[in-house]
């Protein structure tokens, strides 16, 4: 579910470098009127990252310890957030599940950012046939919704995390590469690039040492927004039983496991992972949008 709301009209690289940023038109007003929301989201992102890092020490129970006699018990002193339909501790599964749930999107963002910047920078810098070849192939990749490509790859390679992560990385690549391309096109026209060229620096050298560091903030803002989308897609795959292996604690998997619990009238073990997913996605979106906005404002002051 990736939204690209930048029409080519708005993407005139010379006039506004950041107008090309692929972003949802959401959150604009919230961002400007509610400063505390951004802060709350930064804190939440930091918190959830810390939880994922220190999961094994934070989880009070073994997330896979089954206790059928205690199935669907409500919150208690031993299990503060209750247990699921197999008697597994919900809090421990949420904490340990944060690892897979964040690691997957991180992989997607790494693949799409590194490859997307390389492709976009090459297309923008060298132009010509390379540019049109890369534009054609990114058009092709755009025709495949991320989730569909991931499902297609899973149907070939079977369940597991690496294959869908790479598939989603490829599906998200064009968003990063198109942004990078338009940024590089604008950057090329700036005087400092010519100064380096006159001094005899080679194209790749200028690109890697000067141009890419200059455009990095905008690309990173885009990648932060992509993180939320990747989380949604990967959690969806796990919900379908096509993502992580069945016993791995994972938020999407927990929503799937919680479906039986919810139908028996014990919604807690399903609602909590739902909340974890929604809050994390919203937090990453707000932070990414805020960064993008800050870069845009700095540019307009120049």
């Amino acid at each position, binding site marked *: *579910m*990736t*939204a*690209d*709301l930048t*029409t*080519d*009209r708005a993407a005139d690289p010379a006039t506004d470098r950041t107008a090309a940023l692929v972003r*949802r*038109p*959401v*959150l*604009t*007003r*919230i961002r400007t*009127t509610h400063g505390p929301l951004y802060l709350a989201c930064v804190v939440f992102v930091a918190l959830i990252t810390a939880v994922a890092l220190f999961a094994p020490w934070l989880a009070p129970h073994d997330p896979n310890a089954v206790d059928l006699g205690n199935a669907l018990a409500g919150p208690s002193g031993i299990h503060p957030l209750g247990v699921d339909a197999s008697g597994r501790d919900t809090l421990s599964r949420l904490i340990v599940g944060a690892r897979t749930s964040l690691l997957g999107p991180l992989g997607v963002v790494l693949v799409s950012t590194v490859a997307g910047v390389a492709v976009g920078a090459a297309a923008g810098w060298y132009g010509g046939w390379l540019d049109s070849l890369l534009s*054609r*192939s990114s*058009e*092709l990749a*755009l*025709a*495949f*919704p991320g*989730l*569909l490509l991931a*499902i*297609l*790859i*899973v*149907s*070939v*390679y*079977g369940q597991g995390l690496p294959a869908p992560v790479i598939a989603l990385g490829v599906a998200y690549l*064009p*968003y990063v590469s198109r942004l990078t391309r338009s940024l590089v096109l604008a950057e090329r026209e700036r005087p400092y690039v010519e100064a380096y060229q006159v001094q005899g620096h080679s194209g790749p050298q200028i690109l890697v040492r000067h141009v890419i560091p200059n455009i990095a903030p905008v690309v990173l803002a885009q990648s932060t927004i992509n993180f939320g989308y990747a989380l*949604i897609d990967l*959690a*969806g795959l796990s*919900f*379908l*039983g*096509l993502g992580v292996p069945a016993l791995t604690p994972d938020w*999407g998997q927990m*929503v799937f496991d*919680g*479906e039986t619990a*919810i*139908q028996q*009238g014990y*919604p807690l073990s*399903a*609602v909590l992972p*739902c909340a974890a*997913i*929604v809050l994390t*996605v*919203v937090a990453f*979106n*707000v932070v990414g949008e805020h960064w993008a906005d800050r870069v845009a404002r700095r540019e307009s002051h120049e």
Partner: protein
Amino acid sequence: MTPGARSPGRAAAFVRFALRRLAEMAATLLGASFAIFGAMYLAPGNPADFLLSGRAATPAALKALDAHYHLNEPFVEQYLRWLGQMLHGDFGRSIEYRTPVAALLGARLPTTLLLVGMALVMVLVFGLVLGWISAVRGGAVDSTILVATTFAVGTPSFVAAILLQGLFSVELHWFPSGGSGSGPGQLLWHLTLPALALALYLIGLLARVTRSAMLEALDHEHVTVARSRGVPERQVIRRHVFRNSLGTVLTMGGLIVSTLVVCTVLVESAFSVDGIGQLLDLSTTTKDFPVVQAISLIIVALFMGVNLLVDLVHPLVDPRVALGTRSVAG
């Protein structure tokens, strides 16, 4: 210049533009079909073993595979034959159900189309109305809608499905919790919650887009002129602000339809609706590759078709749009 007095030059330009877009779409579709066909060669081992995936390699099964894939021929020939068959509506036979894929899809397609249609109506009605109210009212109403839509766009469709199911069918018993019922009335009844789950994210997105497009249109001079001429405010908003913002909505057409179709996989599975989304999930799990290929190709073609339609219709309804302005992709 009145709309009727368009110069013949513009008409010719439009035809050229339409033909070019059509050719581009055909090229992209060719690439996509190649990826969908070639995917089975990415699997470890030879394609016949992959396609059978542990099922008994009976002579009948092998014969059915060969009739569809011609695995003994060179790769390029296999692909071209397969593509030709797909274009003729021959999607091969399901390995799991041993029936023609076209028949499987035909039985399930109406349910999915109804589901997507219901969700589309919800997206357009609620999205446009909420965006309108948000832009015109401002203040507390605006803030409330903005917070609500922030969370709507952060909510994956399967999460919405589970939460709606828990609230409206398990707790309140207002709606059935799954299946598709029997008879058209029952079907509509069963599909209401799934359609809402499917629509929620896009309602939030569309409300946001409509709101910002209307706010932008409100700043234009023609609005000030209309107001100063004493045109009633309702009419100003309807004729000069809302109508002007519809172009932005139109460019989202491809995105809206493709998101709806792809997310039916999640929502149909959550509500056990027997549409093609659920079939895609089932056939991925059972490694029924001909079915996966057929559904993937249909989704990609649908997405590109809607985008093409939007690109062609947009300059016709809005003469300000230059030919070649591309619709939103992805």
